[in-house]
C-alpha cells in the first residue's frame, strides 16, 4: 500500500501497532482540515508491525501526548520534502487536559473548570495518577 510522501508536515513513526488511532484522537487530529494518513500494521524490521501517522501540514502537535501514548515513537518534521528535524520523545512528568479522570469521587467530576492533571508516578511501569484523587489511568 502506498501513501504519498508529504512536502511539509509531520510523520509520527514507529508507533506500537494498535496505538495509532488512540494517538490520532488524543492529538485532536480528527479536527484538522489537512490530509492525515493513518497506516496501521505497517511492516517493520525492528518492531514486526507498527503504526504510522502522516500529517500533511506544518501544524503543531503535543509531544507530551505522543510521549504518553508511546514514548518509543519517533517524530520527523518534513520541510520542502526533506527531513528538517527529528524530535526525541519522552514520557512527560505531567499530562494536562489530555485525558479525564474517571473516578466519580474525584473533585474533577463535579468541578468542570478544573484542569485534568495527571502525574507520572512510576516511570518503569508507565503509571500515571490523577493529581487530585490519585486514581490510576487504566
Amino acid at each position, binding site marked *: 500500500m502506498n501513501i504519498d510522501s508529504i512536502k511539509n508536515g509531520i510523520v509520527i513513526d514507529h508507533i506500537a501497532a494498535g496505538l495509532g488511532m488512540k494517538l490520532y484522537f488524543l492529538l485532536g487530529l480528527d479536527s484538522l482540515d489537512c490530509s492525515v494518513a493513518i497506516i496501521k500494521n505497517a511492516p517493520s524490521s525492528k518492531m514486526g508491525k507498527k503504526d504510522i501517522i502522516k500529517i500533511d501540514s506544518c501544524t503543531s502537535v503535543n509531544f507530551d501526548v505522543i510521549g504518553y501514548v508511546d514514548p518509543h515513537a519517533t517524530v520527523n518534521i518534513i520541510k520542502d520534502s526533506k527531513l528538517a528535524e527529528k524530535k526525541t520523545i519522552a514520557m512527560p512528568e505531567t499530562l494536562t487536559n489530555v485525558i479525564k479522570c474517571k*473516578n466519580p*469521587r474525584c*473533585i*474533577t467530576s463535579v468541578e468542570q*473548570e478544573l484542569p485534568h492533571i495527571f502525574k507520572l508516578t512510576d516511570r518503569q511501569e508507565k503509571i500515571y*495518577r490523577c*493529581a487530585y*484523587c490519585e486514581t490510576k489511568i487504566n
Partner: protein
Amino acid sequence: MKNVINIMDLSVDEIEQLIHCADDIIDNPVKYQDACRHKILATLFFEPSTRTRLSFESAMLSLGGNVLGFSEASSSSASKGESVADTISVVSGYADIIAMRHPKEGAPLVASMHSAVPIINAGDGGHYHPTQTLTDLLTIHHEKGHFDNLTIGLCGDLKFGRTVHSLIGAMSRYPGVKFVLISPEELKLPSFVKQEYIKPRGIEYRQSTSLEDVIGDLDILYMTRVQKERFFNEEDYLRLKDSYILTEDKMKLARNDMCILHPLPRVNEISVAIDSDPRACYFRQAHYGRYVRMALIMKLLGVKV
C-alpha cells in the same frame, strides 16, 4: 506556608515534634490556653461530621482562638454551585487557618492551590484523613510507648477506609512494623496502597478473611466501620456491613496488652460490652485527637509557646 493534605506531607521528625508538643499540652494545658489568641480557624465541612469538626473547634478554642465555618454543604455557597477555589479564595481572607472536609477526593488539594492560609485536610471522600492518622499515632504512642516492631491488624473496610490507608503510610516508616490485613474479598486493601507503602519498604504483611485466626498475633487492632456513604449500591453495603463484629469471645483470643483502636463513629462492629475492657482505647483515642490538632494548628500558624 505548609498545608497538610496527606499524612505523608509530614516527615517522621515533624510527627515526632507534634507528638512531643501534644504530650506537653496534655501535661500543661494552661500553658497553651492563649497560644492562638486573636487567631481564627475556619472549619469548612462540606460533608457532615461530628467528631472531627468538634475536635478541631475544641482544639482552637482550647488555644484561646476563635472559630467560624459551616457544618454541611447545604449551608454554604457550594449549594449555589460555588467552586471550591472561589469559596477558599474568599474564606482565606476571613481566617488564619482552614480545616476542610469535602466528599470529593482531591478537594483540599484544590483548596491549597487557591488559599492564602494553611489548609488542613479534615477528610476528602475515601482518600485521606491526616489528622485522624495523627490521632491514631498519638494514641499508639501513649498506649504502647513506641512505633517500631508493632504488629498492626487492620480490620473491616480496607478498600474505602481512608484512615486505614493513611495509617499504613505513616506506620510503614517505622522499623520492624508488620501489617495484618483483615477484610472480606470485596473490601481488600487496594493494590496502590501496597505498591506505594508496603512493598517498596519490604514490610511483612499478610491478608486474612478471619479475625479469629489472627487476633492473637496483634499488638494493635484497628477496627473500621463499613461506610454506607462510600457505596453507590445499597445492596453491596447491606451484604458487607456486618462482616466483622468484635465480641467478647473474640477478645478472649487476643493478647492482654493488645490495643483496640477505632476512628469512630462505631455502628455495631465493636460490641458495647467491650467498652469496659482496658484494651479498648477508642474513646481515649478520640480525646487525643483534640491535643494533636492543637499541636498541628500551632505548628501551621508558626506559634511557639
